[in-house]
Structures are given as C-alpha cells and as structure tokens.
C-alpha cells in the first residue's frame, strides 16, 4: 500500500502545470475563444489614443502646412472616443466571462479535490497531514483565484497590449522598433535569470509559512499542555522564531523582485533615449513624420508599462502556479484503496463470513516495504460469530481491523467476505454492510442526534430514542442538559472522552451493519457501563458477525472465539475457556495480568 507520497518541490515548468491544470479542469476552456476575442478588441483600445495623437498632429494641427483644422481634430477625437467606448464594453464582458468561467471551474476543482482527498487513505494513515490537506482545498485554490482575479486579467490584457503596440510601432517605423527590441534584450535575459532565483525564494517563503502555521497550530491545539507545564516562554520563543523566519524569507524574495523590476525600468529609459537619438536621424532623413514620431514616443511608454506590470504579475503567478501544482499533485495521486465502482459487485445478502488468505502487511517506509506488521494470516471467521482480537500494543490488531474493513489493502494475500474478494466489492455496498467504530469517537460539531443521523439521515426522533434505549443509554442521555439535542462541540469536545465513544457506538449501531468491527471502541467508558453495553450489544448484534479489538479482556471472555495476535502472527484461537487452559500460552498470561488488575 502506498500512503501517497507527494513530491515536494518537484521541478516542472509553469507551462506544464497549466497544461495539466487545463486537462483536469476542462471547464476552463468553455467559451475561451469568445473571451480571447473580446480581450483582443479590448486591447485595441490601448493603441487607439497614440494613433489619434499622430493623426491629430499630422493632419489636424498642420505643423507643416501652418493650417490648423479643428474639424479634423474633432473627427479624430470623436472616432477614438467611440472606439474607447466599444473596447471598454468589450473589456467588461471579457472580464465578466473570465471570472465566471474561472471561478466556476475552480469551485468544481475544489470540490473534486475535496472528494479525492477523502478517497486517499492519507487522512487516516497520516493524521498529521490533515492540516496540509485542508490547505489544498482552501489556500491553494485561493491563490489561483487571487491570481486570476488580479493578475491573470492584467497578464492577458497586457500581453495583448504588448503585441498590439508592437504592431502599431512597427507600422510607424520598423527601424525604431528594432532599436526598442534591442534595448530590451539584455533586460529580458537578466529578468529571466532573476525569475529562477525568485522562484526559489518564493518556494522557501511558502515552506516557512508552513512551518509557521504548524507552530501556531501546535500552540493552539496544545494550549492546555503548554499552560500546565508553564512552558509558554518556550512555545513563544519557537513561535517568534518561525514568524521572524518567514518575515526574512519574504524580505529576500522582495529584494530579488525589486532588483529584477528595476532592470526593466532601466531598459525602458535606454529604449526611450535610443528612440530619440535614432528618431531624430530618421526625421532628418524624412522617413518619419512629426506625428508619427510623437505617437511613437507614446507607444514606447505604453509598451514599457505592460512589461513592467507583467514582471510584477509574474511574481504573483509563481505563487499561483505553486498552489495549482500542489493541488494537481494531490489530484493526480491514485487512490491506493480504490473503489471498483461499476466494475465491482455487491456483497451477498445475509450474514457475512470472513476469510483471510495468507494475508501479510507491511507499511511502506521511504518507498520500500517496511517491516511486516502482519505475517501470513490465514483464517476463517464463520458468519454470526462474535470474535475478540487480543494482543499487546503493536501486535497488529488494528492493522487486522483496517484490512478487514478495507481501509487498507494487504501487501500479500487477500481478504474475502462471504467468498467475495474485498477488492471487488463496491464501496457503496461495503460501507453499508461493514462498519467500524474507531477508538477516538470523533464527533462532528453538531448535536448528539445529528451525529447519530450521520449514519442514517432518515432516522426519525422515535427511532433515535429507540436506539439509545436498546443500548441502555437513554438514562445517560437524559442526564445531559438538552438530551439528544445537546451540542457536542468541536470534535465532540464538549462531551467527555467516554461519552464520545458512546455516541460513536450508537452511530454505528443505527447503521445496522452485517459485520461490525469495534476497535477498542469503549476504552474510555466506565466498567459498569461497558459491561452493560457489551451485554446489550451482544443481544442486539446477534445474527451479525462482530469483530472486537480489545485490551480489556472482559470482551474476550464473552466472545464466541478469541484470536490472539502476537508480533503480527495469529498465535492462538478458540473460545476463552480453551485458551486459558494452557498456562504457558500468551493468552493465559494476558488473562492472568488482566485478572490481577481487575480483582
């Protein structure tokens, strides 16, 4: 199984990222031709005014003829104003389309990535990375939308303006245009070399922001520990360091960016000066008119501006491309435990039996398979039996449960439910028939009733109450201030740990599964409640298969069969009474120590 390593800092050109991005969000292409067409018209507006100035000077002012013609000037101004109105309108429609299309595409991308991340096992295998995953569907998408709303348009319009002004410039004088281009060649080379350093600086800055966010989150989540140990000074110092580190990275990127920007400004001044020198020569040679030359000086300024803005926006683009790349890297990860979907089958109706066929499992460590956690497990659990899995910490019990519920796939061998290989079962069927209750009774920030309904949204209030009654938990619920309507707080933290486990158990119970897997689901519940719960659970789950991972051996005692796991191997199995008969067995030792603790 691969836990999906994301290659950080992989080198890929921005263009390649755009191509990948477009391939994954085909909506972006919707009406693109129309938008580009409107953009083209909008750009023409930028060159209209210098042309008007040229026409006005050459034909209207009559510098050569000495005859000023107000009519010509008024006509030129009126026509140009008309063009401006049209191009402005086009600009409005272009941006409207662009924003609508891009925001729609990005929202879809956001939702798809969200769904995709749920399909990856990363969230529950590497819980530490949850924060990073959240930023994929939040700040990374935001960086793209930020770029499109501010920079993308500018880049698009200015790129076009560059082309349009260049064409008009070439029409007026190809010689001067060559001079301008020549002046910019060194600047382009320098800016390009700066771009690489800048990309590195931005990457470093993104990395440090991640470290800073990690430190902030630690100080918030670990607030009680920090306070209890009086180490706010230590945490404060660590926080300060990460905040300052980020600030320094920001400054470094800014210094590079300003230096690169200045190169453009100098090139602009050189270009303008060169135009004056060569323009005067051309004028003397009669190759350019006064109006054309004046328009040309305007055009050079208009040509310089987009170059300047583009270098600015390109910096921001680095950020957006980095965000997009991170998003795509997650989107490209194949779910390691994939839903066979329409190619899959449904589980056969009725109680389920379980077969492990020579199942081995090892977590990958740095790409290579790590040490084996489970070794050649080969067993059959008959339908309707209640099995307890016991063993020391790290013996492989939880891995067994995860393989059984297909949260992971075995490295070798296969797991079958009622003869159907798990890998062939459609998730819709699997998740409705097989339910696992994990140890940390995670609850959503809602009421108890809503949390239970998470498993069965159609449950009526009466059904809900009945479920609690059947599990003998109604008395407990009634002690709460608002009964079933009690809000449980963020992650359920308004309830005690034991209480959270109770709600999680009811939630699994109402899901009415045919195979119920309990992974130390009552570890924080008091013994009296646990025993009572065990008994009621036994009664209500009769007729289903249950597999309970437990370190309280009371569960094992009442099970039909006990599986003893030691160092990844099933070393013993059978009913409790048989297993304790051999005083040297691992189970007998576990049981002896259990008795020692409970008597």
């Amino acid at each position: 199984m691969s836990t999906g390593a994301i290659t950080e800092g992989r080198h890929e050109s921005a263009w390649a990222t755009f191509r990948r991005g477009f391939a994954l969000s085909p909506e972006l292409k919707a009406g693109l031709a129309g938008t580009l067409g409107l953009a083209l018209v909008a750009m023409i507006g930028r060159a209209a005014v210098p042309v008007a100035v040229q026409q006005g000077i050459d034909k209207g002012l009559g510098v050569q003829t000495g005859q000023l013609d107000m009519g010509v000037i008024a006509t030129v101004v009126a026509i140009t104003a008309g063009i401006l109105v049209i191009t402005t309108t086009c600009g409005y429609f272009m941006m409207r389309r662009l924003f609508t299309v891009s925001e729609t595409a990005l929202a879809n991308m956001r939702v798809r990535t969200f769904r995709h991340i749920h399909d990856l096992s990363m969230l529950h295998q590497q819980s530490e990375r949850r924060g990073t995953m959240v930023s994929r569907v939040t700040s990374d998408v935001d960086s793209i939308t930020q770029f499109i709303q501010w920079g993308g348009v500018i880049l698009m319009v200015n790129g076009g303006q560059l082309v349009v002004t260049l064409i008009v410039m070439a029409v007026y004088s190809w010689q001067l245009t060559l001079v301008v281009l020549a002046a910019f060649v060194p600047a382009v080379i320098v800016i390009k070399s700066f771009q690489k350093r800048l990309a590195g600086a931005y990457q470093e800055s993104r990395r440090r922001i991640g470290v800073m966010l990690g430190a902030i989150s630690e100080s918030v989540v670990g607030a009680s520990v920090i306070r209890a140990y009086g180490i706010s000074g230590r945490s404060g110092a660590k926080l300060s360091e990460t905040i300052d580190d980020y600030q320094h990275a920001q400054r470094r990127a800014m210094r590079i960016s300003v230096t690169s920007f200045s190169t453009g400004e100098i090139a602009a001044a050189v270009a303008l000066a060169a135009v004056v020198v060569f323009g005067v020569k051309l004028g003397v040679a009669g190759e350019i008119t006064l109006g054309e030359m004046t328009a040309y000086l305007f055009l050079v300024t208009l040509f310089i501006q987009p170059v300047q803005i583009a270098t600015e926006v390109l910096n921001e683009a680095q950020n957006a491309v980095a965000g997009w790349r991170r998003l795509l890297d997650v989107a490209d990860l194949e779910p390691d435990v994939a839903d066979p979907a329409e190619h899959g089958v449904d589980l056969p109706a009725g109680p389920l039996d379980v077969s492990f066929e020579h199942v081995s499992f090892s977590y990958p460590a740095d790409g290579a398979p790590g040490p084996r956690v489970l070794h050649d497990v080969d067993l059959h659990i008959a339908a309707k039996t209640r099995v307890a899995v016991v063993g020391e910490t790290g013996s492989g019990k939880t891995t067994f449960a995860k393989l059984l519920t297909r949260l992971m796939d075995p490295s070798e061998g296969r797991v079958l439910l009622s003869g159907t290989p798990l890998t062939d079962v459609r998730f819709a069927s699997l998740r409705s028939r097989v339910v696992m209750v994990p140890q940390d009774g995670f609850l959503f920030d809602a009421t108890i009733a809503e949390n239970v309904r998470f498993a069965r949204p159609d449950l009526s209030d009466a059904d809900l109450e009945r479920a609690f009654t059947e599990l003998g938990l109604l008395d407990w619920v009634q002690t709460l201030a608002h009964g079933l309507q009690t809000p449980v707080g963020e992650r359920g933290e308004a309830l005690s740990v034991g209480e959270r486990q109770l709600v999680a158990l009811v939630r699994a119970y109402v899901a009415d599964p045919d195979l119920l897997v309990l992974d130390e689901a009552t570890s924080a519940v008091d013994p009296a409640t646990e025993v009572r719960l065990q008994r009621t659970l036994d009664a209500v789950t009769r007729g289903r298969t249950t597999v309970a991972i437990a370190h309280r051996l009371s569960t094992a005692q009442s099970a039909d069969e006990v599986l003893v796991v030691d160092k990844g191997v099933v070393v013993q199995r059978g009913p409790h009474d048989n297993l304790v008969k051999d005083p040297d067995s691992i189970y007998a030792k576990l049981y002896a120590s259990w008795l020692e603790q409970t008597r």
Partner: protein
Amino acid sequence: MLVAGEEAGAKPEITGRDVLARGARVMWRGIRDEPRRFTLAVVGSCLFGGLVIGQAMVIGWIVETLVAPATSGGDVTTGAVALGATVLIAMGLGRVVGIFGRRLGAGFMQFALQARYRHEVTRRYLQLPLSWHQRHPTGTLLSNANSDVEAAWFPVAPLPFAVGTVFMLFVAVTVLFAIDWALALVGLVVFPVLFVMNVIFSRRMAPRQARAQHMRAEVATIAHESFDGALVVKTMGREELETQRFARRAGELRDALISVGRLRGLFDPLMESLPFLGTLLALLVGAWRLDAGAIELQQLVQVTFLFTVLAFPVRAIGWVLGDLPRSVAGWDRVERVLRSTGQMPYGTEALPGAGAAQLRFDNVDFAYEPGQPVLRDVTFTVPAGRTVALVGPTGSGKSTIATLAARLLDPDAGRVGLDGVDARELTSAALADTVALVPQIAFVFDDTVRGNVALDRPGIDDVQVRHALATAQADAFVARLPAELDTQLGERGTSLSGGQRQRLTLARALAGQPRLLVLDDATSAVDPRVEARILASLRGSAQATTILVVAYRRATIALADEVVYIEAGRVVAHGTHEELLATVPGYIDLVTAYEKAEEEREREHVYDADGDAAAITEEEEVAA
C-alpha cells in the same frame, strides 16, 4: 450540520459608508507602528511621481526642439540630441532609486506589520486561559493569526504608491496651470472623477469582499472538520454526503467571488479608459488653444503625454481603497483576539517546601455553560504523599476535577488548594513545578523525543529523561526509534501509536519530578500488562509524590490509599476501597462489573454445557 454560531453572530458589520474611515484608522495604526519604513516608501514614491511628470515635460521639449525641426528639414545639433538622451536615461535611473525606496519600504513595512501582529496574536493565545481556548474553534484561531493578519495589512503594499500618486496629481495640476488654464480645467475634471470613481468602487466592493471572506472561512471550517473526521466518514461510506455539504459552501463562495469579479470587471476597464478620454479631451482643448496661440506644440504634447502616463499610477489609489474592506474585516478579527478578556492571571506566591504536596478541594462548583453545573460542592483532600483514586461513571466530572487540580480552569465557587495555598495565588512557575497533569488524550509536540519529554525545563538532563521514560515503560520503544532520543515526532516526524503517545506524555510529567501527579485515565490505550509494569514502577518511585489518579481498573484502585467516588458531579463517598466496597452501591457496580460479568457468563456457560451434554445424549440415542 455545522453551526457557525460565533462566526455568524460576530460577523463584523461592514457597510460601505464607514469602511473607508475605519480602513484609514487601520492604515494610520500601521504608519504609526512603522514610521521610518513608511516615510522611506513615500519619499521614494514621490520621487518616482515627480520624475514621471518630469519625463512628460522632457518628451514635450524633445518633440518641439528636436523632432519638429528634424522632420521639417530644420537644424538639429548632436549636442542637443545627446542632452535629451542623457536626461531621459538619468531620469530612468532616478526612477529606479524611487522604485527601490518605495517597494522595499512598503514591502518591508508590510512584512514587519504582519510579523508584529502575528507575534502579538500568538502571545495572546499563550496568555489566554483554557476556558477561552475551549470557546474558540482551532480553525478560527489559526486564521486569526494567519490570513486575518495578512488581510489587515494587505493595502499597506500599495499605500505609499497611492500617497505618491496623490502628490503626483497635485504636481500635475500645478504644472497644468502653469501651462494653460484651459488645459488645467481638463485635469481638474478628469482627476476628481477618477478619485470619486475609486471611492464609489471601494464602497460597493466592501460588502461583497466581506461576504467572500466570510464564505472562505466557512469552506475552511468544513474542510477542517471533514478531514479531521475522515475515518468516520470513510467507515460510514459518507464521502458523497460530505462532498455535498462541502460543495454547497464552495458554491456560495464561488458566487461571492463571481460577484466580486463582476464589479471588478466593470470598474477596471472604466478606470483604464478614463485617462485615455482625458488625453483626447486634452488634444481637443489643446488644439483649440494652439489655434488661439495660447500654447505651443511642446505644451500640447506635454499635456497629452501627462494624461497617458498618469493612467497607471492612479490605479494604485483604487488598489488601496479596494482592499480596505478586507483589511477592516481582518483587523476586526485580530483586534478581537488582542482585546480578549477572560484572563486567568497567575498569583505571586511561591510554594515553599519540597516533597509531596497536599491537594484540597473545598466546596468547588464548576460549569462550562452557565446553568449546567458539572461539579457541585466538591470537597476532598489528597494528603501529601498519598495516592487517591478518583472513581465515577462516564461523564460524572472526573476529567474536570483533574483539570481544576492543575489549575487549567478556576472553580466558579469554592477553592482548590495546594499545600494550603489557593492555586490562584501561585505563580506560573510554582504551579508548573508542583503539579503535572497527564491528560486522557496525549499531545505530542512537533519536536524530538527528548524535546517532548524535557520541554527545555531547567534541570532536566538526559539522565532524567531516560529515567522518566523507563518509569513510563517507554524506554523500550524509544530505543527502537530511528534516532532514539533525537527522533523527530509530530507533523514532520515519526507517528506513534496511541499507547506509545500516552507513555511519552507520562514520561513528560514524571521528568519534572512533580510534587502532585494527576493522571486522568492516562493509560487507557496501554495494554494491561504494560500498565501493570507502569504502576509497579510508579509505586517504586513515588515516595515524594502525591498522586490523584482517575481510574477504573481494580489494580489501579488497589494502589490508592483512598478512593473518592463521584456521581453526577458530586462526591458521593470517600474512604478506603474496602469501605466503599462494603457500603456504596454505585461503587460496587462499577468496580465489580467485570467480575460479575464473568460470574454470570460462567453460570450461562454451565447451563450451555448442560444443554450440549443433553444434545449429545439425544444424538447418541438417535444413533442407537
């Protein structure tokens, strides 16, 4: 499903009317915090602006004195051309200096302000008590320190540019008046219109931006929660439902962003075209004035050029005004943290003496929510050096008592005393040196094993760290980690199992040799056999420690000298285990639950065996 009570309730009222004034106040605060960088940036920006106008003047002069004669067969000296070119290049270099001042000043100012308020907000987090933290979702606190701080100082980057532009506009109008009053009137019409449009835009943008920002937070909250509960989502097969929940909010965010974009789409092209219209107007008026002999060609070119080069800088004003609403929204959230009360100040008393400390609860009442008491009139004593087990059913208030004992919360009424001193009187250091709480859910820092155990507390060296790890039965698994004590744990490090985490936090508590150790069911994820070993080694080394232990297991209770039994937040009984076992029905139920279950099972078993025997007999009979 999600209730954004606080978010929605406390959503700042941002109306277009007052947002500019409030934004200006935020900016003014930033300027006061960073006066030198701001001054540098403004000076740079004004230099840049002055040179832009200067360039328009020079271009006009060049057209009149160089280009016009050259194109009409006149005489142009090489010296004049060289002068023109040199002046243009010199002005370019001057602009570079201006840009460096403006952008480095503005950027460094922005970064410094972000850092300053991140320092302040996080320092506040560390000061505010647990009760405050419990009321504020993690996601909100994270975005307060990150994106809200960022949003608050967003307009600082273009601010000096905007100030420089205002300066530039004044210079431009002055220059226009010097040239010709009629052309100056064109400027007086165009520039104020630009300014007014910027103001209208930012006012209309304010509510839209606020909504987008709010929706962004909502989307983040859902993602946070859903990914946190990924295991539940997956095991219940509810990915689709969660995706729908997320998609609804993502859709609202999309709509909010589109509405922001549409306004932008209207405003941007208009702002771009207006200066061009100004240029055309200047051309028209200029031609008329030229005809009337009031100005020369040079001045006409200068004026038209001036409008062209001003088009871009004027946008900077729009950038600042456009980002002010976001800034105000961000600043409001930041300020709310900085102004948060609910302080739980430490006292000034030290706790003299060494060895085990006594813990006493006197008539303690406590409620997380008003009107829903969790503890009622709780009174008990843990004598110095003794071990007391706190026993009670699920949800009876045990963890709350443990939390109060470590003074992470203060009682609503009554008093928690350590060696006779009210815990509220003690200094932070005295508390930390005296009490160590091992919580039910272990928290591991993003640090090495050593860092996690020692926490840089003075006097805790490797010997003590190893000793504590050994007592907590954590030495064996730590020895197997890739870099032993130096192994990095947490977000970017090795993951530990639940039982391993608990043992590590236990070692953390033991390393400080606390005088009172509070264990809140701190071994729930540890195997019975390992737990037995931990308890044995605790007993071996606990001479100088008072222990309050929340426990269910008989073995743990057996370690205790006395038991305090609570139900529904009240102390029902205290005494030795034997005493309670003889007199308190609830206690009997709780601690003998497993035994009774087994007895019952054995009875059933005998019955089952009889049944089996009978069945066999039947079968045999049939066979016979």
